[in-house]
Structures are given as structure tokens and as C-alpha cells.
């Protein structure tokens, strides 16, 4: 999952970047409104965290302009003022949720995961597709009730595929969500990771959870459970 952190306070920005990276996100940062606008329009983001009190372009305006540019990924507001006027304005501008400073990092993480889930059409933190269950909070996988151990990169790919189960996701998109922009991109890595995932999830090759669509990408093929 690729997240943009827009925060002008360097210390807070760095901490958020570190902790989000630890939590398995690919993190882009912007330290003022104009940078945020650029990053928000140019990078393939899954979610953005926007501080309202930004120098240059105010946070609200960044959100408004990104929405006007038809960017539909969820946005989480960071606000210093715990007041409803700001919240109402923020959500009317196009944000999806807010967190008040000083926040617990766990809360930010939980809200981000909830937003991502909802953006993918999931109502609960547990993503269930047939026998495969992915818990976004605990970052665990079970197949037929048995836990499956995954590496960080494997988990990130599976989470991305399952969140948007049924959609075709290109290799490029997956790559961008695994690496920061500085890394050299090698699509072979994705093929290797998907191959390992298939073996771990489906050793007997009977579920076939991940389809390859030649030239287009991958699709998580198992139907979502109606309950979730």
C-alpha cells in the first residue's frame, strides 16, 4: 500500500514515515501544500494523510484540488483543533476521516486500514475470500483456518490484491506499491513474489486464488464472502 504523508513538522513527518514503513506501507512525503498537490497527482497512491495546518497551500485546499483532479483514493485529515467546523469542512472538501493531534500512531494506522478496506469495498477488517482470510489489523493470513507465514512483501502484494479482489491489477501498480520511487523497478521481482504466494496459499494447486492475465496483470479470483 502506498501512502502519502503531508506534514510540515519535520519530526512528525519522519516519525510517521518510519512507523508507517514498519507497518508495511510504501511512504511518500510532502512538507507543504504545493508539494502535496504534486505528489498527490503524480504518484499512484492508495491513501493520503493530510495535515490541515500547512504552509503555502492549506490542507483543505490540497484535498479540494486533488478531488477536483478526480483522485479518488481515501484521505485522512490530521488536525490540531478538535473542532467540528474543521471536521465538517474537511469532509465536505473530500476527506474521508480525521485524526486529532496528538494522536496515537495505532489510531492513525487503524483508520488508514479501515479507509483502505472501505475503498476496496470491505466493511470489516477481516478480508474473507472463500477459505482465505486476511486480517488487516493483525496482518495475518489463514487458509482453511490454518495460519500461513508470509514475508512482508508477500503480505503487501496479497493485501493489495485481496482489498481489490476481482479487479485486475497491473505489475507496475504492484511494483509501485512495494517500493519507494528511489528503488530500481524490476517486474521480475513481482513474478517471483506471486509465484511464492501461490505456493504458500495453495500448495496442492486446487484453489488457484491468483490469476495471471497475460499482458494485463493479476487478479485475486476467489469470490468475496457475502458476510464481509
Amino acid at each position, binding site marked *: 500500500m502506498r501512502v502519502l504523508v503531508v506534514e510540515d513538522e519535520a519530526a512528525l513527518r519522519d516519525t510517521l514515515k518510519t512507523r508507517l514503513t514498519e507497518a508495511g506501507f510504501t511512504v511518500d512525503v510532502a512538507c507543504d501544500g504545493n508539494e502535496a498537490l504534486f505528489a498527490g497527482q503524480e504518484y499512484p497512491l492508495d491513501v493520503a494523510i493530510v495535515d490541515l*495546518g500547512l504552509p503555502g497551500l492549506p490542507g483543505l485546499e490540497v484535498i479540494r484540488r486533488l478531488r477536483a483532479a478526480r483522485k479518488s483514493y481515501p484521505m485522512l485529515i490530521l488536525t490540531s483543533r478538535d473542532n467540528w467546523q474543521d471536521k465538517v469542512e474537511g469532509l465536505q472538501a473530500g476527506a474521508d476521516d480525521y485524526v486529532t493531534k496528538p494522536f496515537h500512531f495505532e489510531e492513525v494506522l487503524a483508520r488508514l486500514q479501515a479507509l483502505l478496506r472501505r475503498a476496496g469495498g470491505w466493511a470489516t477488517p477481516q478480508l474473507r475470500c472463500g477459505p482465505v482470510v486476511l486480517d488487516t489489523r493483525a496482518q495475518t493470513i489463514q487458509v482453511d483456518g490454518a495460519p500461513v507465514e508470509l514475508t512482508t512483501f508477500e503480505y503487501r502484494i496479497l493485501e493489495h490484491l485481496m482489498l481489490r479482489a476481482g479487479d485486475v491489477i497491473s505489475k507496475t501498480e504492484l511494483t509501485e506499491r512495494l517500493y519507494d520511487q528511489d528503488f530500481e523497478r524490476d517486474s521480475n521481482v513481482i513474478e517471483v513474489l506471486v509465484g511464492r504466494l501461490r505456493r504458500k496459499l495453495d500448495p496442492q494447486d486446487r484453489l488457484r486464488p491468483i490469476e495471471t492475465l497475460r499482458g494485463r496483470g493479476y487478479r485475486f479470483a476467489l469470490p468475496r464472502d457475502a458476510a464481509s
Partner: protein
Amino acid sequence: MHSLSRRLLVSVSLPLALFFGVMMLVLDTGFRALSERSVQEVLDSEMVSLIAAAEPQPDGGYAPTPHELDPRLATPRSGVYAEIRSQLHQWRSPSTAGLDSDFGPLLPRSERTLTYATFGHERVAIESRAIQFEDDPNGTRGLTFSVAASVSPYEEQLWRFRRGLVGWFIGLMLLLLVTLAALLRWVLAPVRRLEREIHQVEEGRSDTLGAGYPRELSGVATNLNALLVGERKRVARYRDTLGNLAHSLKTPLAVMRSSLPAAASAGALSAEIDRMSGIIEHQLKRAAASGGALLGQAPVDVAQVAAELRGTLLRVYAGKDLSIELSVVPNAQFIGDRGDLIELLGNLLDNACKWCHGRVLLRGASHDGAAPRERLQIVVEDDGRGISAADRARVLERGVRADEKVPGHGLGLAMVRDTVEMYGGRLSIDSSPLGGASIEVRLPGR
């Protein structure tokens, strides 16, 4: 005496009445003196002709010769009467016939009097003179000549004059007062307009006072407008500053919080950060609240604010299957600061959403009959577990600070209570038919 025009009317009509009264007195005295003088003149001329006409009579008395007698003295009850008396004799004019007339006693030598008496029903003035004729055939003796003239015609005239005077006086007085009242109406019209417009500003029907006041009042109107606009700007700037202050105080706290190692995150440091953040939040909110001043506040449409908050809360609580029903009568308006209403309803709805199982209901209505500061009624209900009697009392108790948390209902409800108190409204907590809490606030509105 709380009305300027009443003061002016009273202060003008009192001296006016005094002036007319004195005038009346002077005129009356003058007129009476005039009529007394004319009676005197009649008496004097009658006296002179009576003395001239008096002739000694064979019986020893005196009487005027009949052909020289004033015809009025010859006609009964003509209003002019005469008498000539001596010790032994008495002559009375024929005009006294049938009248109970008494001209007074015989006068001592060379005396002269003017008296008043009543002949029958007629008031008369009597002039008497003591006379001695040197050529009196019966020797020198004292005679008293008396002439009486009825004063009734003069008195009648006097009364007619007085009636006329009073009539004119009252008429003029009324005319003056009516003119004065009309003038006052015209002169004070701008003052009344000022009063009306201030009232409108108070009720939130307009932002500022209009233009076009006369020179003497335009200064007041302009300054009042400047004050209203300045106050609004000041509040806006103040809030802006407080927002910046919150930002610069809380961002370092956020940095501290997020740089805590995970193990210490639930520890003492984290609790202190929470406490500091709570204090900052509470104090800044108190400072930012408008203070419940009603002057120059535009009325706020309750339905619109509620709808905006509903949209926000449905997104915030997207993970919870809940419905927020709004039932606000059209045109229910809050008179006060929009920000205050948003905070108040936001807190109430947020609490309800937090604690409900699935239903939140907001009702809004205005009651024209209620006290001015309790006209707007807003009730927020939910189907959660409600608020216990002990907690209710704790929330409603005065003097409990908002940052002393009410378990389960956080800062929200105490902030609501503070805001309601600031506006002089009322807050009550009850059980809802839905099963949870029902919180009613009464606020200035219409």
C-alpha cells in the same frame, strides 16, 4: 419617564399651562377693573343728576322733580335705583317698586361709601353720599343720597368673558400640544429608526445599521456599525490565532507521542501528553467560544448545520451500521454563533453515534411562547445504553469543569453544558423512547 417624547411633552405643557394661567388671571383682573369702572361711571352720573334734580318737598323731604327724573329710575326693576333719605323722610325711585331694597344706613356728614347689596335676586352696587343743602328750607340737615346700579349685566359679561377665555385657552393649548406631538414625531423619527434597527440587529435579522441618518445621529450609527463589524472581525481573528496556537502547541505533542517507543506508549509519558492535550483543547475551546453575545449575530439555520454534521458523521462512522434521522422544523433558527452551534450539535451527535446500537434521532423545533433564550429546542436521542442517573447529575452540576471527564461521555457533554450556560439556555438529560439517552438543549432562537 422612559420616553424622550413624553419628557418633552410634559416639560413643554407644564410651563405652557402656567403661562396661560397667569395670562388668564391678568386678563380677568383687567376686565373686572374695567367693568367696575363702568359701574362707577353709571353710579357717578346718576348721583350727579339725582342731586341736581332734588327739590325740597312740601312734606319737608327731598325728591327729584318728576320730569327731570332719569327714565330708568322711573321704570320698575330697570336695574338703576335711587333713594334720598333724611332723619324723618325717605324718597325711593319708582324703579324699586316691589323690590325688597335696602340702601343702607344714614351717613354722617360729608361721608361717601360704595357698598354691595342684594335687592331681591339682583346684585347691586350702591353709592351713597351725605349731603347738606345750605338753602334747605327746613334748616341745614343731613341727607343721604344713594344710587344703586345692578351689576348683574356686568357680571354676566365677566362670566362670558371668562368662559371665552377658558375656551380659547384650552383650544390653543390642545392645538399647541398636537402640533408639538407631530413635530416630535417628525424630529424623533430617526431615533425611533435607530432603536428599531438596533432591535433588528439584536434579533439577528440584519448585520449592521442602515445609512442615511441625520447629522447628529450618523456619528452614533457609524460608530455602532464600526463596533459591530470590528467585534466580528476581532472574534474571527481571535479564533484564527487560537487555531494557530492549537496547531503549534499540539504538533510538538504529536511529535513526542509518536516518538515514544512502543513499550512506553501506554505509560506515564503518554498519559501526561493526553492531559496536556486535554487542557490545551479545553482552554482554547473556552477562549474561542463567542461568549454567547447575541448582538450582531446572524441567525443560523439549524436544519442545514444538522445536515452537514450528519454527512460528516456518516463518513466518520462508515464502519458502523447506523442511521441518523433528522427532524427539524423548517426555519428553526439559532441566534448566536454558527461555530458554537456546530460544536454543540457535533458533540451531541458524536456521542449519540458513539453509544448507539444503530439509531440516532435529532429533533429541532422553535417555541415562540418560551423565554427568549430558550426558544430553540433541540433533542438528540439514541438507542444505546443511556446515561446513568449519577452521571446525569454530574454533567448537570454547576462548577464541574469540562475537562473532568464524565465516564463514557467524554468531554463532549460537558462542553455542551458550558456552551448552553454561556447562552443562558438549558440542558436536560432523560431516557429516550429509543432506549438510550435523550439530551435536550434549549437555546436562543426563533
